């Protein structure tokens, strides 16, 4: 069955209530405003970026560090490494807790990759964020509260998909990440009205499914 959710696995969630200033600086936090850190690793990077952004909507936390690991979860450095390390920073541990709760909730019941083929070898992430938090909005050069379609797939599928998405709805590209990225996927951030973002995400997802089912298209008579 296609388009089944591939639930992300949260590999570790930890908190440092009173982090050393040197550590804060190294991870991009501001020791004048931040004292506590919340750390999470997960085997899917893009749902985690969405969940980190979700956390900024529920608590006074900043996403100070979030980086994908090279070649993805299939080549992790350890059992807890997964594909990404995300770091929230806040003035106190309670804010971190509130942020982590929102983050975990988002990963457990909202953001996830889907299998675009029967074998689940092709993963697609056609996620719609109805209202951006201040982390992704800043990264995308948009305003908090804007709607955004967060689209990810392997390079070939994604490239066809982005084209379909941009043509299917009144959206514009806030940012496109062509391959290779750390995990060798391609990603695009499209923005427009919520309805337009939804239409774009659906068109993208459909395109990815169709490319996965028919990789050589008409050219080779497939």
């Amino acid at each position, binding site marked *: *069955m*296609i*388009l*089944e*959710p591939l*639930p992300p696995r949260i590999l570790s969630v930890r908190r440092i209530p009173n982090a050393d200033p040197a550590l804060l600086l190294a991870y991009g936090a501001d020791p004048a405003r931040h004292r506590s850190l919340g750390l999470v690793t997960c085997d899917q990077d893009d749902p985690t970026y969405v969940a980190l952004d979700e956390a900024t909507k529920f608590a006074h936390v900043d996403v100070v560090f979030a980086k994908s690991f090279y070649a993805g979860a299939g080549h992790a450095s350890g059992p807890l490494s997964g594909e990404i390390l995300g770091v929230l920073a806040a003035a106190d541990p309670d804010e971190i807790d509130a942020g982590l709760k929102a983050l975990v*909730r988002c990963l*457990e*019941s*909202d*953001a*996830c990759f*889907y299998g675009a083929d029967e074998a689940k070898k092709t993963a697609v992430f*056609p*996620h*719609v964020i*109805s209202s951006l938090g201040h982390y992704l909005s800043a990264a995308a050069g948009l305003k908090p509260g804007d709607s955004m379609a967060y689209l990810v797939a392997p390079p070939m599928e994604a490239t066809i998909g982005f084209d379909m998405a941009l043509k299917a709805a009144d959206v514009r590209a806030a940012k496109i990440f062509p391959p290779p990225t750390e995990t060798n996927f391609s990603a695009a951030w499209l923005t427009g009205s919520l309805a337009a973002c*939804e239409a774009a*995400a*659906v068109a993208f*997802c*459909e395109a990815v*499914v169709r490319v996965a089912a028919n990789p050589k298209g008409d050219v080779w008579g497939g």
Partner: protein
Amino acid sequence: MARTRELVAELRERLGGAAPQPPPAPLPRVPEPPVRVFPKRHEGSRYARETAAHTTALLGIGQVGTRYATDVVLQFQAELAVAHEAVATELPEDWAAKNGLLGLRSRVTHHREFLLRPDLGRRLDDLSLARLKMEAKHGVDVQPILADGLSAVACMQSGLELLASFTRACEARGLTVGTPVCARYARVWLEDEIGQTVKARVAAILLGERPGLGTGDGLSAYLVYEPAVGKTDGDRNMMSNIHARGTPPAVAGDRLAVLARAMVDQKRSGVSLELGHLVAELGDAASRHHRAPQVRERLVEVPT
């Protein structure tokens, strides 16, 4: 929540994916907050209990946990509502005429403006000024002015009684009293223009005072000698809390008349007015004898 999952499920349906999607993981359960019942604790101090019997101030009201008891809170809200309602009430336009008073109004045109623009409430509108010049007696000793002020309720409730007792008391002390007027949307300083227009020696405005908790019916009186636009509060003498639980209107009329007499005799008012010897002239109205304990009117009943 999880809008993307719905969208993808719809797409799968469209693309012919038959089997239903696994349901999303259930949301974590939010634990119910613990219910704690606090017993009501009455004020233990005997001093507070006995003091509370002699005042309408909020003393010895006890507590429940760290908060006020429900009946105290409800009473507070009810009393606040009385005050709000008093401020919101307007004096009907024909009220003055119905009660045989010369009706005037300030430059204010509606109630909201009255609350927001005190300056307009201190001057007469052109029509009223003309009426006052035409119809009022000029050159009197005392010009009484009844007005709504910040509580039309108080004005309508006990204004006429105070006006009558004040007029009687003034005449008994040999003062000539002007045509009684009634001003709508009036502020205290309106007495300056009215008194100046009729060339009265003393202008006395009796008006509803800013309501407090549970007292929407209080009147105040402000007297000024040789009223003229530009007089300040330092030129006035005033008396507040004229209501049943404060100074009753009948007694207040006497006291105000003594004040007016003193102004006429001393040819001044306000800070420089000599008040030391006035007690002797007050007679019964000076009454400083013991009053029965005051009880706050219960506006809310809570079963115990």
